[in-house]
């Protein structure tokens, strides 16, 4: 197992927007079928990192290897190659669905693009299989995106992303906007997909409980840098960086100690 190539390998990633350094030397590896969490405060560079992975932004410097090969350039070929291996899911996928297409047509789109040789019948069969896999009814498949609830749209986005059997799914706050009961449905769906298909996740979230549930390892970002990394369980049990401690103590629990949060903040401010 240890000789296996990481499906995603990121090193020394830097992204500057003018004089803002949004991502500052980020690096990590993701093995096939693994799940990595990215947590951190607002503006710490999580989305920027995710967008670079998905090829939606070019890094200022640094490299991204997918299945051992560098992915660079914005040529059609480069973009298709990347998309084939890695797909991204956003907080609210509404904007990424064509309002005039049915959900089933949207789900079919990447398959049409990446597997042009597939017959229409095979493509339709694959779409039906995908919709079933994410728990969407045929009726939902025939509906325009506006008629779907937030949870159904997120299922549809997952079905669309899975259509071309990518090896990595990057999810940016993908369950943040969902009601608790729906969030649990999507989390269990993601669990079983990973078990059944061996797909790997990069899971960006501010919710440490969700990150604990869905990931094996995690990185904690602050001001564009990774300040802590390791097994998710270890980070949560024994946080080393003052920011990670603040993050953990900020989670509401019975007997929540808000004075401790204030102490953590002072410790963090003193640490730099």
């Amino acid at each position: 197992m240890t000789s296996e190539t990481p499906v995603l390998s990121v090193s020394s990633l830097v992204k500057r927007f003018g004089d803002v350094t949004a991502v500052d030397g980020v690096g990590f590896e993701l093995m096939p079928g693994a799940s990595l969490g990215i947590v951190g405060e607002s503006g710490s560079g999580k989305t920027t990192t995710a967008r670079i992975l998905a090829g939606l932004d070019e890094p200022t410097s640094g490299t991204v290897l997918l299945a051992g090969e560098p992915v660079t350039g914005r040529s059609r070929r480069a973009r298709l190659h990347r998309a084939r291996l890695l797909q991204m899911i956003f907080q609210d996928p509404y904007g990424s669905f064509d309002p005039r297409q049915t959900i089933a047509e949207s789900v079919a789109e990447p398959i049409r693009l990446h597997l042009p040789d597939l017959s229409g019948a095979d493509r339709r069969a694959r779409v039906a299989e995908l919709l079933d896999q994410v728990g969407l009814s045929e009726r939902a498949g025939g509906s325009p995106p506006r008629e779907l609830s937030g949870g159904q749209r997120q299922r549809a986005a997952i079905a669309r992303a899975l259509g071309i059997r990518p090896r990595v799914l990057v999810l940016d706050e993908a369950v943040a906007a969902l009601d608790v009961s729906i969030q649990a449905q999507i989390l269990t769906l993601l669990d079983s997909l990973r078990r059944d298909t061996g797909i790997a996740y990069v899971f960006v979230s501010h919710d440490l409980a969700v990150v604990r549930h869905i990931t094996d390892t995690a990185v904690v970002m602050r001001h564009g840098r990774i300040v802590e990394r390791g097994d998710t369980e270890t980070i949560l049990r024994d946080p080393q960086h003052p920011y990670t401690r603040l993050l953990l103590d900020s989670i509401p629990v019975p007997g929540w100690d808000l004075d401790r949060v204030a102490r953590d903040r002072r410790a963090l401010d003193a640490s730099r």
Partner: protein
Amino acid sequence: MTVLEKESAIRPDALGIDGLTLGIGSGASAVPLLDGVTVRVGRGETVGLVGESGSGKSLTARAALGMFPRGARATGAVTVAGVDVLAAGRAALRDLRRTRASMIFQDPRAAINPVRRVGDYLTEGLRARGVPSREAAATALELLEQVGIRDPRGALRRHPHEFSGGMLQRVVIAGALSTEPDVLLADEPTTALDVTTQAEVIALLKEMQRTRGTGMLFVTHDLDLAAAICDRVYVMYAGRIVEEAAGTALFSAPAHPYTKALLEASPPVHGDRTEIKAIKGRPRSLAEAPSGCAFRDRCPLAGDDCAASVPATRAHGTSAVACVRPEEVAR
């Protein structure tokens, strides 16, 4: 009688909503929104109102200010510090919102006029109460200090866009408490904030509330948050209150199947890694809910008796619960 009970026997509750039923339209096009909602907030008490989207939390909170959807019909009773809100005219409502009840929302940017300075925002409520401008300015400065704004004097002259979401929410809290209201209605006030900022804003809210003795209705979809900071919590589902419990009891002894299902659907951050259990279906509004118990199409304990009528609220353990068999809801 406890001290609190003694006091409330003399002074009316900060907020009392009693059997509030709300609907729009009439006849065949009537849409029910709330059904028999009863919520009480004592003076100085923090009370949570929890539920998923569309359950009617915001409608309930806004009712306390006499703010109802256009064309809505309300029955029942709503009183704020003894004032009958449903009977109040426009002038009385304006006065109520100015002096007795304040509200803060999820998005602080929606609450503040973007082209006005923060100082003007903070002083206008005070000025409307007849506080002279010099004194109002001094109070505004003091408030900004209290809510932890760096360089409060400079902040008075700045515009909303110059503040982060967390800092602006502090400004809004300062404004909401400047009039020393009897009740503060906080509708998802930290939902848009970072977890760390949320903790700091909550600490501030609790402190301000404690020193002023303000009652707070804290609306949130986050059960953990409500249980952590509230004395009592109401759980809402499809336009009705389904459970009322002490904040601490919610976790140890949920009495309603929905409360229990919510707890089992959220992964824990501490302790053992437990499996999460998804709740089938999706949350409903009152208008789309089944007859009888509105939760019965999603409830693992549902039986034929659950369809007969809306379950009456009854005592179970330390909770009040609207379910026909709370004794089967052991955690």
